[in-house]
């Protein structure tokens, strides 16, 4: 547990006072971490786990990209290549993206933001982490034992009958992890409904809470359907029964319906929390209330509900009825509206702001740009005839990476930087952080923009060997991926460095609004010395800045502590 020791509190406390008690120095034993029911410690456990999985998933992606620099299969065997992209997809989707913001930032922030002492069910929260870890172990086992080659989509009958890799262990791993997701979502919904501080009405809630709530709805109502579809595939493999087997009159498309009923909304499990993070960061670095608070909030709900109506757009070429395709295409455009509302409102929030460009803001602005590009290419893939051409090509790969990496991961990193001081009590080095934010933005675009072109040219996804004329664009993409890898490596390094050598943070270094900034950094185990009573509207930056100006009229660097 060397990582834990790095979380020690300031080694050089101010000489005149003893180290303040906080959640990090409240016990150092392994037991005090592994049996904790403190939502903040569980968030740290998740942070370590998802970082671990991110590195494995990233490693798999690196080998895939490296191999694709040449059209031939000359780095790894094709079997290995297939297992690598499957590992990349499974790990990044189920073990990094889905738990990333909800389980790390959500766990840490939801009780703090609503002025509660903990989530409604702290033991269940710890159980969620153990379930996640157990699911992760199954998946790691599947990888070590030889891998799985079905793609993260597990399409029957390939997954149920034909693949002779470790489909069962992986499916069990994802099945188990799904329950972690369900329990986390359940915990958030109950907490947000029942544990808000006095005076904290729905329309005073931070937008991150709105988006977390919307995400939780998807987790609770969508994940069980993924569980049952994987369960049926597992039964088919284990008991040799043919639920999806055409030989018994089974329908492989039924699997796709069940799978995408969850897996399309799952995209919004990944990106909605990021939208919440961005909705926190932008007001703070513009020093003003976001434009159209209620519209941003309700659009999160609209996205959560609409996301369940559109899964069939993954089946336009599958043999689904063309009339159903028509319905799903029309419904898919519904999601465009709340997404557009959000992007326009964020942009309008900049208007007449007092904008500074600290690292979280760079990530947030990067998110808005990349999400816009990802979202707009969503119009292409929802347009039936165009989707027929680009379906299962690199166009799709580029599209969903713009949403899931350009969107979700940028938001995640922005959030980690924004709340890092709250989580650890330390400041990260700003210069390095800005450099890496820019590197990630550039590297990302260089990696994935060429893939749009590749896709429209017709290069199918999951191809190990490909025609020579696609090589130039693939090399560009791989070059971008190496920049991206360097970009990701930086935060990993300097954030760890900051744990010991970073400047000690005050309770509110960004002078941000929100209850989480009104307690000390890192917060005490019980979060607040007294239950906060909320009398202000959300994002009341005008008042905060006015108070600040009254305290010290002309020094912008001052840190106002409410704690």
């Amino acid at each position, binding site marked *: 547990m060397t990582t834990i020791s790095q979380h020690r509190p300031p080694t050089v406390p101010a000489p005149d006072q003893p180290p303040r008690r906080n959640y990090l120095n409240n016990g150092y034993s392994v037991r005090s971490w592994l049996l904790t029911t403190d939502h903040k410690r569980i968030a740290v456990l998740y942070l370590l786990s998802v970082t671990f999985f991110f590195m494995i998933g990233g490693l798999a992606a690196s080998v895939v990209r490296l191999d694709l620099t040449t059209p031939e299969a000359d780095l790894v065997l094709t079997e290995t290549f297939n297992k690598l992209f499957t590992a990349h997809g499974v790990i990044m989707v189920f073990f990094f993206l889905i738990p990333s913001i909800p389980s790390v930032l959500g766990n840490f922030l939801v*009780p703090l933001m609503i002025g*509660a*002492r*903990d*989530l*409604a*069910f*702290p033991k*269940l929260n710890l159980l969620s982490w153990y379930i996640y870890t157990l699911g992760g172990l199954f998946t790691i086992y599947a990888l070590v034992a030889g891998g799985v080659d079905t793609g993260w989509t597990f399409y029957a009958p390939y997954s149920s009958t034909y693949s002779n890799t470790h489909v069962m262990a992986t499916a069990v791993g994802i099945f188990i992890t799904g329950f972690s997701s*369900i329990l986390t979502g*359940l*915990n958030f*919904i*109950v*907490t947000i*409904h*029942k*544990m*808000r*501080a*006095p*005076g*904290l*009405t*729905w329309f005073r809630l931070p937008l991150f809470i709105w988006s977390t709530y919307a995400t939780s709805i998807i987790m*609770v*109502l*969508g*994940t*069980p*359907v993924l*569980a*049952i*579809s994987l*369960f*049926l595939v597992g*039964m088919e493999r*284990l*008991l*040799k*029964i*043919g*639920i999806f087997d055409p*030989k*018994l*009159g*089974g*329908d492989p498309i*039924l699997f796709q*319906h*069940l799978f995408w*009923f969850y897996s399309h909304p799952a995209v919004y499990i990944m990106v909605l929390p990021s939208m919440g993070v961005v909705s926190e960061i932008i007001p703070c670095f513009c020093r003003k209330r976001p434009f159209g608070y209620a519209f941003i909030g309700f659009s999160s709900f609209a996205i959560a509900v609409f996301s369940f109506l559109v899964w069939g757009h993954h089946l336009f070429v599958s043999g689904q009825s063309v009339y159903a395709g028509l319905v799903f295409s029309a419904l898919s455009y519904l999601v465009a509206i709340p997404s557009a509302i959000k992007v326009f409102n964020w942009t309008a929030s900049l208007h007449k702001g007092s904008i500074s460009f600290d690292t979280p803001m760079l990530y947030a602005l990067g998110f808005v740009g990349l999400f816009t590009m990802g979202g707009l290419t969503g119009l292409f893939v929802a347009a039936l005839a165009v989707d027929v051409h680009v379906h299962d090509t690199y166009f799709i790969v580029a599209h969903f990476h713009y949403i899931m990496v350009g969107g979700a991961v940028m938001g995640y990193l922005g959030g980690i930087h924004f709340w890092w001081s709250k989580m650890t009590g330390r400041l990260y080095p700003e210069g390095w952080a800005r450099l890496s934010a820019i590197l990630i933005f550039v590297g990302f675009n260089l990696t994935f923009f060429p893939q749009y072109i590749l896709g429209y040219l017709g290069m199918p996804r999951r191809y190990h060997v490909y025609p020579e004329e696609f090589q130039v664009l693939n090399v560009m993409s791989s070059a971008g991926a190496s920049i991206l890898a360097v970009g990701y490596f930086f935060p990993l390094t300097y954030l760890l460095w900051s744990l010991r050598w970073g400047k000690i943070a005050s309770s509110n270094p960004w002078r941000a609004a929100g209850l989480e900034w009104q307690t000390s950094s890192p917060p*005490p185990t*019980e*979060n*607040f*010395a*007294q*239950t906060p*009573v909320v009398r202000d509207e959300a994002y009341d930056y005008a008042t905060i800045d006015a108070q600040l100006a009254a305290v010290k009229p002309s020094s912008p660097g001052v840190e106002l502590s409410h704690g």
Partner: protein
Amino acid sequence: MVDVHSTRVPSAVRSHSDSASHSALLPPSALAHQFDDIEQQHAADELGIWLFLATEIMFFGGMFLAYAVYRRQDEAAFAAASTKLDAGLGAINTAVLLCSSLTMALAVHAAETAQRKHLIALLVLTIFLGTVFLGIKGYEYHHKYEVGLMPLAGFPFVWEGPSAGHAQMFFNLYFVMTGVHALHMLIGLGVLTVLAIKALRGGLLGEFATPVNITGLYWHFVDIVWVFLFPFLYLVR
């Protein structure tokens, strides 16, 4: 946006680090530290279990969807396969499960009104009825195995008549759906056993009745699943 105003009241501005403060009001185990009062805790528990049951609806829903799709494809085959199930036993089992739901509902009532003896008796009765259900289910499974209607794990599937494929699909669905249901019953029986032991030790009464109430909701849900499984599997004509 049901509760526009927070459920928490501003009156309770008190120190949290001092956990002894509420031990004077209530026995320490009734109120968890993260809640302000027992009402808030009960409301959270109830909302939590209902959200869990909503996930269960979707979980079973996936299987019911598979059933609906395949039944549409070949209704005659499903009807023919259904006649091989013993509708009488199915009806008896439904009655057994409905009885257990009644005893469970009465157990919740007994726990909340702090009638210890009633609670113990009703929990034991519920466990007994649940076991009877599983016993009958086991007998049916065994019978299907003996007559070659259990197409699992390479066991033979003997089918005289048309549409052997779809008939086999019916039995696949029958075993998967009732199997998952039986698994839920087993989990429920395990929890009920723990509750019965706690009740024997004098727990679960009055303010402490929440576990009984939550288990009751779960048990009724499992009952509802069977209420649909019974006609869809045994009574297809």
